[in-house]
């Protein structure tokens, strides 16, 4: 197990390095020169241009710039922001570093249990009106675009009834609407998966045996059947987390939350490449760490997986 975890961790480092290379290369192909964006109207000033290029190390050959970038990652500053005068990328991102992961993890912690409960509920009543109602409700939940849903919620809960703040960050109340918006799609996803897996499991012999020996239906469902859906469900958590991280881009912009998602959008528009690259790297790290945890978790949950992996 420890050997396996170490091997996976080493693999992660490779993934991160690849992310660094890809973002660095991609930025070179984005149209527009950050120094020109910085100079704006003063782009005729060749002296100033030369000075800025030297300040940001952009006058050096690309391979050297890449090594510089690696050095800045290693020293934890991540280089200088283009948008903010004399400010390191670390100082730009540090205030909002955990906001997007907090949003995503809160949403997962609500969406997965909720989705499982709804899925079991629907599976138990397969093809009844209750099943149809749950699935229909969830499908319409995903179908409404998140920005439209957000506008509706803000109008109702903040402007009309004044129970929640429109936007911002800092109190638990600020978390309610953004999380609600984030929770809907993964809940629907988890519920539908749970329903399908449950229907499959309920057909199996051991469930028939459990029922035959007279166990109460609740025990059959929760102790025997549901446990067998956990492994396939767990594998989807990593995917859901990725979806939620990208969801924070939209949600943070709508609800004016000073997290990395909103900062990423601002930095892209401001041609602040060092900040953009760092956020891409951090999101890659969050995503890959969550996936590693998920993988480790199901090797723990399912002995068969553990066995195959240690042999390989």
């Amino acid at each position, binding site marked *: 197990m420890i050997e396996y975890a170490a091997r996976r961790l080493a693999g992660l480092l490779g993934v991160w390095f690849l992310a660094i290379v890809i973002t660095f290369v991609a930025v070179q192909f984005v149209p527009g020169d950050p120094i020109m964006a910085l100079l704006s*109207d003063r782009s005729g000033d060749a002296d100033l241009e030369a000075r800025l290029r030297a300040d940001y190390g952009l006058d050096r050959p690309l391979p050297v710039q890449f090594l510089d970038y690696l050095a800045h990652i290693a020293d934890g500053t991540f280089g200088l922001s283009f948008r903010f005068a004399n400010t390191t990328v670390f100082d730009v991102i540090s205030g909002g570093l955990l906001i997007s992961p907090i949003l995503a993890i*809160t949403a997962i*912690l609500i969406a997965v249990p909720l989705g499982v409960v709804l899925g079991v509920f629907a599976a138990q009543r397969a093809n009844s009106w209750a099943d149809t109602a749950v699935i229909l409700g969830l499908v319409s939940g995903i179908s409404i675009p998140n920005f439209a849903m957000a506008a509706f919620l803000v109008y109702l809960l903040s402007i009309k009834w004044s129970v929640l703040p*429109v936007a911002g960050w800092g109190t*638990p109340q600020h978390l309610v609407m953004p999380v609600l918006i984030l929770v809907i799609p993964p809940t629907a996803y988890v519920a539908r998966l749970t329903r399908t897996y449950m229907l499959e499991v309920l057909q199996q012999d051991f469930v028939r045996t459990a029922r035959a020996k007279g166990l109460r239906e609740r025990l059959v469902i929760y102790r025997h059947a549901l446990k067998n859906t956990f492994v396939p469900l767990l594998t989807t958590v990593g995917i859901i987390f990725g979806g939620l991280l990208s969801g924070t881009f939209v949600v943070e*912009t709508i609800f004016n939350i*000073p997290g990395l998602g909103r900062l990423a959008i601002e930095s892209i528009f401001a041609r602040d490449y060092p900040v953009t690259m760092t956020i891409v790297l951090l999101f890659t790290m969050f995503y890959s760490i969550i996936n590693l945890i998920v993988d480790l978790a199901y090797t723990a949950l399912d002995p068969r997986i553990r066995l195959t992996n240690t042999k390989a």
Partner: protein
Amino acid sequence: MRAGTKLLALCASALALTLPAAAVSQAAELRTNINADPAMVDPITYSELIAGDVMANVYEGFVGLDTEGNVIPALAESWEPHEDGLGFRFKLRSGVKFHSGRSFGAKDVKYTFEQLLIPGNRGGLNAEYLDTVVGAQAVKDGKTTDLEGVTVVDELTLDVRFTKADVLFPIYPFYFMDAGIVEEHGADWATKASAGTGPFKFKAWNLGRDVQLEAFADYWGGAPKIDGVRFLIVPSGDTAVSMYEAGELDVVYVDTQTIRRVLKDPQFKDEMLTAPAAQIRYLGMNQNLYEPFKDIRVREAICIGFDRDAMVDGLYDGAAFPLYGQVTPGVAGYNPDLPAIPYDPERAKKLLAEAGYPNGEGLPPIKVTDTEPNKNDITYYANQFSSVLGMPVEVEIVERGSHIKRMNAGEVPFFPWGWSAGYPDALYFLSQVWYGPSTYNRSRWQNDAFDALIEEAQGTADAKARYALYNKAEKILLDDWGTCPTTVRMQVALVKPNVEGVSLTPFRFLPFGDAQVTE
């Protein structure tokens, strides 16, 4: 499931701990929006609008603006031109204190000028106003840090000498800073201390969240009646208006994409402030790059070939006015008597035919270029010129930084663009955008008589005489159809009924020193 619930509860409590406590709302704090973080909060590197919105409350120059947008003395009480016209002697205001408690005086003005010019400091917008000062180039080149042309005569008297006449120098919007601040707080003082004389002190900048200012009790103009100003950083204009509706903002500057929502909603009618923006807009035609532009008839045909009123309604939701000159209302030297430029497709077609291009036949293809946010404008122009004049115009959308570089280099043949005034005098527009030698003369229109008038105006201290020169110069530009003036944007702001003393001028909000918030 039980374990899951426990975990959830655990996470919720951990979350409550990591979130900072709810901001205590103070009744006497004015809350307003800015749509991005300022790029800086120091008066030396200062080079963009949002930083200006914040810093106008913290720093002051020789002069300020009143609620009508007129120039009034601020840190200078009076000034006298030198006899040769090549400089000024300023009498500075006495009894002015910096936020540090130190007294403001002539040495601080000289210090500010030098800091703007020292090469390693990356002096921003305000450095450009020092070009004519004697010795400025030597400081810029790093040969000295002493600005020769500026002399501290005594504590409150300052002498400034120029290499050539610069009558508007006293109204340039400098932000004078405390010469003792670096010694006290070190080179990175800007986010730790406040170095101005304005009605508010810089208190804190929480990146991505807000910039906080607090009232300066010793302000020379009288202590503000509010405790402070909080600029909340709200990138989405729509969100800002919702926050205003829900009472989370007291004052909101409405962005152009949200104006439609505000103008259409009757509940905002009595809470709205409007003012034209001090920004000219024009359609640039570079005669060096497109042969037909050399013919004045073609230029006129283009200028009367689009409908300014239709643009105001269709493209700007009514929040704009047609512009018939190259000075905007509210800027000194504006000529209100300029004749309207009609939309006259018939005459436009006739002119084109006279120029040898009946129905646009024989006109080479051309692109009209702008950035993505203005794609609707160029789509309108392209459609209008091809359908009405038969001119083969295509739309070209480009990235901003490189577009500006190409325009500065005179490499873009046909483009709509604008220019925002840095100070309230028409010379800003005329000398920067249409004066021959200016880098910002992006369509490279050139006229010797126009240039001579601008040079004369730069040395004409008498305001009335100077305005007459502007009007004459502007007429030369318009009579030559050197460009097509297009529209001027209308700024819109919302102010809650319990807030008083907030003024919107062509130069955005006045500092909030006179604002009052009641319960």
